[in-house]
């Protein structure tokens, strides 16, 4: 049986605070991988570019061609207008695969596009492969709190639509070569718009999810109470991180069960994990021992958790952390 050819791949990317969003850079890496594997043509579509710098970055990152919208309606009705443009592009290129980053924008647009085209959708894939038997695409994704690897097969309907899980691929870097940027307008037959933006605000700095946070401040029994956790939260906000905990704070009612890290809670893998007043039972460590760097703050040098530490601080967290918060504030002021 002949393998199904993947001739055209479209990546749908979004702008970040500066240039291209991190998730979109990762998406470009994924796209380049499949381009090499399947010999496909790789297009990238940037629906919204308010700052105007994302398209330039994108054109230097590796896709064969970049598409951008130039319609002013996109600012007022981004949800519907961007999908209308995308559908037009999919039809024009006869795309076989359309990939999004699994951000809010990507998840939203992917579902809209798949619904309009009545085609298959998989969210948060970690890889795509071709079925050796019939050449249909197979999406690989993590299921059940990221503990299981699942594979699901797409049917023959085209295109295949998927969002790519964050932090699976390394972000693509800019090169000196730049490809062309083509403008596409809104299709003539666009339906009336039902969703109208009334205000666009800077987002309130939400604490990131434990699973996606790059920095996690975790607390155990030693934190002592809600006041202690408020202090950890302050530290986490300064570092743009999230707060987690072990089982005892949940049992005491200081913290929500959703924030528990460990075998019966979340599994995390931040760049830096700072554990405060944690004993270090396997029930907790099994949920965080893949962290890149682990800092342990405890005033008992016999604490088994120090065995996991990249860097251990022997001291009372209630004294160390206020100093830490103050020093980080000073650092930020100096920047």
């Amino acid at each position: 049986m002949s393998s199904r050819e993947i001739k055209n791949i479209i990546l749908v990317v979004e702008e970040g605070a500066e240039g291209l969003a991190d998730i979109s850079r990762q998406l470009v890496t994924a796209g380049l991988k499949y381009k090499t594997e399947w010999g496909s043509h790789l297009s990238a579509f940037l629906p919204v570019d308010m700052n105007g710098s994302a398209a330039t970055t994108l054109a230097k990152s590796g896709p064969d061609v970049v598409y951008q919208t130039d319609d002013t309606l996109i600012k007022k009705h981004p949800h519907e207008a961007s999908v209308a443009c995308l559908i037009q592009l999919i039809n024009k290129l006869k795309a076989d695969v359309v990939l999004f980053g699994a951000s809010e924008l990507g998840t939203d647009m992917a579902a809209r596009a798949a619904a309009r085209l009545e085609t298959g959708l998989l969210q948060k894939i970690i890889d795509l492969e071709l079925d050796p038997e019939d050449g249909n695409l197979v999406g690989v994704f993590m299921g059940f709190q990221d503990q299981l690897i699942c594979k699901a097969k797409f049917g023959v309907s085209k295109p295949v639509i998927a969002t790519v899980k964050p932090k699976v691929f390394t972000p693509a870097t800019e090169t000196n070569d730049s490809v062309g940027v083509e403008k596409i307008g809104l299709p003539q037959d666009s339906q009336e718009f039902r969703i109208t933006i009334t205000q666009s605000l800077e987002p309130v700095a939400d604490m990131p999810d434990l699973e996606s946070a790059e920095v996690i401040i975790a607390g155990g029994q030693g934190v002592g109470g809600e006041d202690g956790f408020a202090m950890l939260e302050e530290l986490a906000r300064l570092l743009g991180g999230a707060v987690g905990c072990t089982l005892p704070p949940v049992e005491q009612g200081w913290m929500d069960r959703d924030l528990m890290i460990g075998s019966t809670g979340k599994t995390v893998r931040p760049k830096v994990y700072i554990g405060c007043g944690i004993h270090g039972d396997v029930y907790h460590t099994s949920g965080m021992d893949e962290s890149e760097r682990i800092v342990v703050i405890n005033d008992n040098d016999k604490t088994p958790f120090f065995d996991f530490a990249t860097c251990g601080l022997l001291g009372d967290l209630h004294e160390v952390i206020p100093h830490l918060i103050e020093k980080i504030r000073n650092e930020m002021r100096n920047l």
Partner: protein
Amino acid sequence: MDVATCVGCGVCVKVCPFNVPLVTKKETAEISQKRCQGCGVCVPYCKTNSIYMHYSLNTEAYSSDKGDPRGLRYPLDKNAIEAGLALRDMLGGKVWILAEGPPQFEESVREALVMGADEGILLCDSKFLGSDHVASSLILEQAFKKIGGCDLLIAPQRNGHGEPLSSVAWVAERLGMSYIPFVKSLKSAEETVLVQQNWGGKLLEMSVSLPAALTVERGINEPRGLSLMASARVMGKTVSHWSSEELNLDSSQIGEAGSHVRLKSIQALPRSKGKKRKGGDMLKGSPEVLAQALVERLKEWRVL
């Protein structure tokens, strides 16, 4: 179940929403494949990695008894229900609860009635198993048509496994409704609803024409509690069960047959056990010295 590695700790018994696992006299767990709903909740909890999942559609759960009298711990998303109830309390109208699942889910639907919902319907048919977004949306679409449509469809942002509930997009598309996921706040206005959503790095405020389909985030509201009075009031109410026949759905349109994406395999992730790091340094000194040392490290690690 791998009996050789199971230590009979009983964590699977605790976490199973359907009360399937049992710890036997041999001090190992036993999971009845007939009663298992395949939700996978127990797998990550198992400390010895002894639970394996096989991919097959378990139709038995739909024909079995009503489960354990202790009831189920598989609650419906209370934030989504609260969002609907709050609007109804202000504007009037009726709140319908639609849930899809095995007969045991009836208790969860009943809980929504206790919260104050007007009608509860359980979409219950073993033929629904294996449906992807497309097929599940068809089931929902038929159900909506049967109740005569609605102005506002509110669903949780994530399903029981934490995955985005994208089937709502299909329902919205087919029924000509506006679709907005990741809703953080919701207010009613004339002929529209005003919602907030994080999108493309911005917090967007927008007006959305009715009819609309929204999926709402957990933090959108504080769900109301359940009172004994209310549970007495809904005692006599029935939760209707609708199967594919009642929804005029052919078995070729739903389940695996009606799906564009079909699950092929499930594999447990090999887990590394407790990696200890040797060679980490232990810093001692006054709190201020320690804090300064950590600041230096954080700079070195580029998180500061």
